[in-house]
């Protein structure tokens, strides 16, 4: 008997906050400026300099905590996390340790463990032949990024597939973008994700040994990396071996996982409270301000779509988790050219997305009102859904008014008059086999007859009407 395994995944996400200045000094955040041009004695860790907390970073942290439904610590402090590395100018990172700003919470179906504030490391460029640190002859440090405010979000191990990890990260990214606290751009490193991955036999509740997959810099790589690691662990266990606790790097080019040399210090970070800073005590005023600044979040929006527009949970999430789709949908509903929001939702998430991909429909030639009109024409059977798709093709290509396109292309639905009765009769005559089967009670045989009529009428016929006419003419 073969055992099947289930992966258990927890994520650690580092988010660069879009404040104007760094976490502990007044240097402006850098966007590709000349190396080391956004530095000062504080962020270079020069002797005698001291950190001072950026108020907006705290506000952003609170906003994130509220959005994730976390408990806000009444009093949180910073610690020093000690280790040596050239991208860490002071020899310690100022971070939050046992008393983070936010504890617990939930986003979608994933529980949040904690949310804390810290400072980013500098950028280290390796100058070896391979560009990988282990082979580098020397490295060059640019401290422009050093000290950028970061929020670290740690989830509970609540994720059970790579696809779910990806979908959840999309929700997180949309949520953070909606909050206006970060650029959340993975390619540029403003959103960085590590994954803790273990597997266990299905039905088991204890967690297996986890590995840490470091710093994947796109949503696609995250999904592929996690899948590769799950496969590696399953293969190991099935071969009777054990999974070692280690940190891995996924190379998207080759699809391989390599073990990062384990730190010789065995992670003895010697945390202790940062004596250069004083506690953060969140006041009622700070909380009230954060509450007031809180926009409607994707998860709430999905719920509202479900309730107000009778959408399925899945479609509501597809719209809400992509802010631009949600906005377009609401604009289409608001134009009042169609009183069937569920139909609009299904056209947006189905036909429109199929044509526009990741593009923002707001930037397309199809105005929300045009889409709404198009769906209205289909709902009122002035246009069959097949013909509607042809109209949409034209709208995507050239824009315009759907009714006008329908007229000019001659796509208006046929009424159930003589023309349609004739087309049905032709179909019956041309498909004796299907007719025979239908008479024998094989209901699905009617498909061939309907298909024939649709082809002949360029999809202008209504499928229901065709079915009725077929049965009527055959006397069934």
């Amino acid at each position: 008997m073969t055992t099947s395994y289930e992966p258990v995944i927890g994520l650690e996400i580092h988010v660069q906050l879009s404040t104007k200045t760094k976490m502990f000094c007044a240097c402006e955040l850098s966007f590709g400026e000349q190396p080391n041009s956004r530095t000062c004695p504080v962020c270079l860790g020069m002797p005698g300099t001291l950190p001072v907390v950026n108020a907006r970073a705290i506000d952003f942290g609170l906003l994130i905590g509220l959005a994730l439904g976390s408990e806000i610590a009444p009093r949180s402090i910073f610690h020093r996390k000690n280790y040596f590395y050239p991208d860490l100018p002071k020899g310690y990172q100022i971070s939050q340790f046992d008393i983070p700003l936010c504890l617990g919470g939930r986003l979608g179906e994933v529980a949040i463990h904690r949310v804390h504030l810290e400072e980013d490391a500098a950028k280290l460029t390796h100058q070896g032949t391979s560009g990988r640190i282990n082979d580098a002859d020397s490295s060059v440090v640019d401290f422009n990024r050093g000290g950028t405010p970061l929020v670290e979000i740690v989830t509970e191990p609540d994720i059970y597939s790579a696809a779910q990890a990806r979908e959840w990260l999309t929700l997180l990214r949309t949520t953070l973008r909606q909050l206006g606290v970060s650029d959340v751009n993975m390619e540029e490193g403003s959103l960085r994700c590590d994954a803790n991955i273990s597997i266990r036999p299905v039905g088991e509740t204890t967690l297996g040994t986890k590995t840490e997959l470091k710093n994947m810099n796109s949503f696609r790589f995250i999904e592929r990396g996690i899948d590769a690691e799950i496969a590696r662990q399953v293969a190991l266990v099935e071969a009777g071996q054990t999974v070692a606790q280690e940190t891995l790097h996924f190379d998207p080019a080759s699809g391989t996982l390599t073990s990062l040399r384990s730190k010789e210090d065995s992670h003895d970070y010697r945390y202790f409270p940062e004596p250069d800073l004083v506690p953060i005590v969140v006041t009622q005023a700070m909380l009230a301000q954060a509450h007031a600044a809180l926009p409607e979040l994707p998860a709430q929006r999905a719920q509202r779509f479900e309730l107000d527009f009778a959408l399925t949970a899945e479609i509501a999430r597809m719209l809400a988790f992509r802010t631009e789709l949600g906005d377009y949908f609401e604009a289409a509903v608001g134009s009042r050219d169609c009183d069937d929001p569920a139909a609009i939702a299904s056209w947006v998430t189905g036909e429109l997305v199929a044509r526009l991909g990741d593009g923002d429909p707001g930037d397309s030639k199809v105005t929300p009102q045009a889409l709404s009109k198009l769906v209205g024409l289909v709902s009122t059977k002035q246009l069959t859904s097949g013909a509607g798709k042809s109209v949409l093709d034209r709208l995507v290509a050239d824009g315009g008014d759907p009714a006008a396109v329908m007229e000019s292309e001659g796509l208006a639905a046929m009424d159930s008059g003589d023309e349609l009765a004739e087309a049905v009769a032709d179909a019956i005559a041309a498909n004796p086999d299907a007719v025979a089967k239908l008479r024998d009670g094989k209901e699905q045989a009617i498909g061939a007859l309907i298909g024939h009529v649709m082809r002949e009428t360029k999809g202008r016929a209504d499928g229901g009407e065709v079915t009725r006419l077929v049965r009527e003419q055959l006397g069934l």
Partner: protein
Amino acid sequence: MIDRDAVLHVAALARLELNSEEVERMAAELSAVLGHIEKISELDLEGVEPTSRVVELENVLRPDIPQPSLPVEVALAQAPAVSGGGFSVPGSGA
């Protein structure tokens, strides 16, 4: 009470290279000092809050307003080694 191995472990954490004579001396000296310090283990400190700082301040925050950074040449002026506009450091070794 703090032996050679402990000294070597701590020296590695602290990025200090000690020769064998220094290791021996450090073990003896740290043991003597820790022997004295050990007396605090006799105190009953049940329920006593730790003090990390003596000032009773909280929420000392800075407005998010940029100030000028250092000119690059000033930032780099004190560096032992500079390369390509950055601080040059040896690689991590093969």
